[in-house]
C-alpha cells in the first residue's frame, strides 16, 4: 500500500539525488542516520518554502543566491566540497569515504561569495 505523503516525498528526493550526485563524483554518506535526518529536514523545508533547501545553509531572501542552496547544491560549491570530500551538511561524500566523521567541515575558500 502507499506510504504516508511525507515519507514518500523523502523517497522521491532520495531517488532524484542519487541520480544527480553520482555523475558529480558524490554518493550518500555511509552515516545512514544522518541521511535519514537530513532528508526529513529537507521534506520539512520543502513543506515550508516549496523548495528542498539546504538544512545547514542560510536563506537570504534573494532568489539567485537561495537557488544555489537547493539540494543537491554541489554544482554551485564544487571546489569547496571536493576539497572537503563531502558537502557542507555531509549528506553526500566522495565514494570510498568510510569514516565520514573524520572529514571536517572546513570554512569555504575566500573566493566563494
Amino acid at each position, binding site marked *: 500500500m502507499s506510504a504516508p505523503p511525507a515519507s514518500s516525498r523523502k523517497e522521491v528526493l532520495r531517488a532524484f539525488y542519487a541520480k544527480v550526485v553520482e555523475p558529480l563524483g558524490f554518493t550518500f554518506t555511509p552515516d545512514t542516520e544522518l541521511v535519514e535526518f537530513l532528508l526529513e529536514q529537507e521534506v520539512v523545508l520543502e513543506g515550508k518554502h516549496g523548495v528542498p533547501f539546504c*538544512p*545547514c*545553509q*542560510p536563506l537570504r531572501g534573494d532568489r539567485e543566491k537561495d537557488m544555489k542552496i537547493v539540494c543537491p547544491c554541489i554544482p554551485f560549491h564544487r571546489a569547496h566540497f571536493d576539497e572537503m570530500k563531502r558537502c557542507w*551538511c555531509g549528506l553526500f561524500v566522495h565514494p570510498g569515504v568510510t569514516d565520514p566523521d573524520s572529514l571536517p*567541515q572546513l*570554512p569555504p575558500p*575566500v573566493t566563494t561569495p
Partner: protein
Amino acid sequence: MKKPIHIYGLSTCPWCRKTKALFTKSGAPFDYVDYDLADEPTQAKIMAELDAAGANGFPFVKVGADIVIGYQPERFAQLLA
C-alpha cells in the same frame, strides 16, 4: 575572565545540534540562536557577521574574538581550554 560565547545555527542543521550539545557538556555559558527562527533584524545581524567572516553555512561559533565556521570539535576544545 571567561570569554563570551555566541553560537548561530539553524533548527534543521544536525551539526548545529551537535555543537550546542558539545558546548552544553563543557559547562561554559553560551548563547545560541537559530537563524531560521530569529526575527528579521536578528537575521540581518547574523547574516552580516557570516558575510564578514566569509561563511555561508552553519554552525557559526564565536568565542571571544575567535570565529569557528562548521562543526570542529577539536577547535572548540582548544577554545574552551
